[in-house]
């Protein structure tokens, strides 16, 4: 056991990995800002200002996909609530940004955001207290989705709700939050959500330099998140997660606490999704209840699935590729987009269950052991094992 886990760790942190990681980091953190700031606009190599927040948005989606891959690819929990955690983090950031508007709103109320004045609030509701401080808001970005996921996950995993049942109740949770945030008297701006931001930490959110800063924050955040996820999956805990994904009862009988392991990874992943949401909101300039829509949460699963689940890098790749296609197709031929996305769901699950990264890993596996019919284990669901045994 000991040797296996160290081997796994050594494999995870090999020189090859660090070179690849550094190269990607160099492109995202150094090359893109350089091309944006120094190359004259109009040159084919220039990254125009409008593209920067778009790239930042993709990086946030990539982080969100990463968080889902952590629970789905490694622990076998297909959460349909990650869109909701993302939106919760986004709302926490949105509340901070709303408080920063101050007297520059339409009604020029120094304390109350415009929609509250409009809805005739007399004072700030208690859950808005403290959101004028960035540190408090940043803490809430992590705490709200984290605590939500911890309570929800602990209750669910303790009663051994697994597989599709868990997917369905996480979807019901998302649906309930979606309905709740549409209500005007929730105090989160109802249907219109929170928008019309002015500053973040004293910088104007509309300035190209601020946007570049936000983009850089997303890139660095994604890098740190990736390293964190990789260290979780390469650790002993990661091995336990993989084991419980493939044979939950056996892991339980071996004496591991399945509930705790699952609750930990679910919470960590929800916090990650919340941070992604918080980075996303200032770059797109709005957060509204449609982010909670149950369809969004399922879409994240297809990013992961196309990229290759249980690979981390695949999740990032899938999120970026599909969102690139979405940006292009919804502009060029909006009717096609739904067909394309729907087809992708069917195609990738039927013919390409390992995803892009998984496919290349399989090729490498075949090169390492020529002639062997073995292939790396496909991430499977516990229920399959149960079905096969039955």
């Amino acid at each position: 056991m000991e040797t296996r886990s160290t081997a796994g760790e050594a494999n995870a942190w090999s020189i090859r990995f660090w070179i690849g990681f550094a190269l990607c980091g160099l492109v995202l953190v150094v090359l893109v800002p350089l091309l944006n700031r120094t190359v004259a606009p109009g040159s084919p190599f220039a990254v125009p200002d409008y593209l920067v927040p778009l790239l930042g948005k993709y990086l946030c989606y990539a982080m969100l996909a990463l968080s889902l891959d952590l629970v789905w690819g490694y622990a076998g929990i297909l959460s349909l609530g990650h869109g909701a955690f993302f939106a919760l983090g986004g709302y926490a950031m949105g509340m901070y940004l709303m408080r920063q508007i101050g007297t520059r709103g339409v009604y020029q109320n120094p304390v109350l955001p415009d929609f509250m004045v409009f809805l005739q609030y007399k004072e700030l509701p208690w859950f808005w207290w403290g959101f004028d401080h960035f540190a408090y808001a940043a803490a809430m970005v992590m705490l709200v989705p984290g605590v939500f996921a911890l309570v929800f996950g602990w209750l669910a995993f303790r009663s051994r709700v697994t597989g599709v049942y868990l997917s369905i109740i996480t979807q019901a949770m998302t649906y309930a939050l979606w309905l709740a945030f549409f209500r005007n008297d929730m105090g989160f701006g109802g249907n219109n959500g929170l928008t019309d931001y002015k500053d973040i930490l004293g910088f104007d959110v509309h300035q190209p330099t601020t946007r570049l800063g936000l983009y850089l924050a997303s890139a660095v955040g994604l890098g740190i998140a990736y390293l964190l996820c990789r260290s979780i999956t390469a650790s002993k805990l990661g091995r336990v997660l993989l084991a419980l994904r493939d044979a939950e009862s056996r892991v339980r009988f071996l004496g591991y606490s399945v509930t705790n392991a699952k609750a930990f990874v679910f919470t960590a992943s929800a916090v990650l999704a919340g941070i992604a949401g918080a980075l996303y909101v200032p770059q797109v300039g709005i957060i509204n209840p449609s982010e909670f829509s149950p369809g969004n949460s399922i879409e994240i699963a297809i990013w992961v699935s196309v990229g290759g689940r249980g690979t981390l890098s695949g999740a990032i790749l899938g999120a970026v590729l599909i969102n690139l296609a979405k940006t292009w197709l919804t502009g060029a031929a909006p009717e096609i987009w739904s067909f394309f996305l729907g087809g992708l769901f069917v195609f990738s699950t039927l013919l390409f269950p390992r995803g892009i990264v998984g496919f290349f890993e399989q090729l490498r596996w075949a090169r390492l052991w020529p002639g062997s019919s073995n292939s790396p284990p496909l991430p499977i669901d516990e229920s399959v094992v149960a079905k096969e045994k039955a």
Partner: protein
Amino acid sequence: MITGVLRLVALALFLALAPLAARAEDLAGVVSGLGGDSFAAKEQAIVALGKLGDPRAVPILQAMSDDRLRRAADGRIVLLVTAGGTTKLTDAVSGQELNDVASDNLDRIIVNNRLRGAIEAALGTLTLFSPDPAARLAAALDVLKHPSPDAAALLERAMAAEQDPDIHAAMQRGLFAVRLFAGSKEQELAAIRALALTTDPQIKNLLDEFRGKPDLDPELHKAADDALASINNRLRLTGLAANLFEGISLGSVLLLAAIGLAITFGVMGVINMAHGEMIMLGAYCAYVCQEVFIAVLPPGWLDAYLVVAVPVAFVFTGIVGIVLERSVIRFLYGRPLETLLATWGVSLILQQAVRSIFGSPNKAVANPSWMTGGFDVVGGFTVTWNRIYIIVFCFVVLVVLALILNRTSFGLHMRAVTQNRDMAAVMGIRTARVDALTFGLGSGIAGMAGVALSQIGNVSPNLGTFYIVDSFLVVVFGGVGNLMGTLVGALSLGIVNKFLEPVAGAILGKIVVLVAIILFIQRRPRGLFALRGRTAEAEG
């Protein structure tokens, strides 16, 4: 002997006709008063017309109010009737066309605001005698709103002539309400006792007002208290019954949406996220049937479109389901999470396909005439026919499905394949065929649900998304793999929802239900009616 009988008949005829003749003369006399020289004289005539209670006075008063009444030189009152661009002159009393009067020889009958008010009041009481039952009923209810002592005599006359029992009862209530404020003590007491048997909130207000009168006889006061208590009690009961009915109605809608899922998810274990789109396709089948009926068949046949739409939707969505099973789902058996994603993709494609063909806006699907309207059970609690038909339809579907599952060889095969696929295959059951047919059956039922839903809501490409989460919750709540659980799950969710709505509001009520189900699943992850024993293990 015969002559004696004839004489009697003649006498009876004379007696019966005499008042009519007398009334015709009365009408003529009063109407000629409308052409009076002073406003006061005209007003007197208007009030007299109102008291007369003759429906023939209605068009005359209407014309007067619209400035279409003229007085001829010989004192006759003439009505201007404009029809198809030409104006005819008719005699106000007899209604016969007049050719001997030149239109420029007529004097206008001038009306001022005071007279208009009088006309309106007179028309109000006169509608108690209107030939239109709806107008009579409205007039009777109007009395209840503003009981005035003058109305008593008119009401009594109107009641004597009234044939319709409902309107008669409404008039009776109006009369009691009038007597409540302007009767003798005995009459008031009788009125209170009679009104105590109703459930109308308006009567409750009247009684409240009555009880608040100063220096009220203690006996009357007590009677009023008792009456109010019994009305309140009855109102509570009808409120309860109304909530219960609405709950059952919502429950049956949920049940219809979930029955198909109970088969595909409950029996086969396939998470079909495209189930909502099967419902949507069924609703569009209803729409297409309606359009075909309008385009091809004579208008009288339109009411039958729904009867045709049900089997059409069943067959069409059933075939779509079988195609879906053969082309996608059969490759994913045993991989429920991937089935979820793939069928979600199918649902996106189906939605977009329907949007491309029919467009995004809602389509109107009309209720056939035998499903429109409803009836009033007791005061304030109306039951509509479309809801009743849907409840009945839903239970018929459930019973037929239960029979198919338990009494046919297909049902036997289906249950065998679910319990032990390999053993069933060894026994010679073609499992692949059973899978396809089972999925087709579940989808077909979803299609029929869509036809039913088209009768109570909008038909749009995203119709299915409104039901998918709820249907899954119903199936999971009731317990996977049995119809009884689905029935109990759907009805209890519907009823709880409707009882929460007045307390918490529609959306908050729904959120409370969702949270309750999430917590419930924590307690009993396999639902209310969990399967026990070997089958349960195999599911695990």
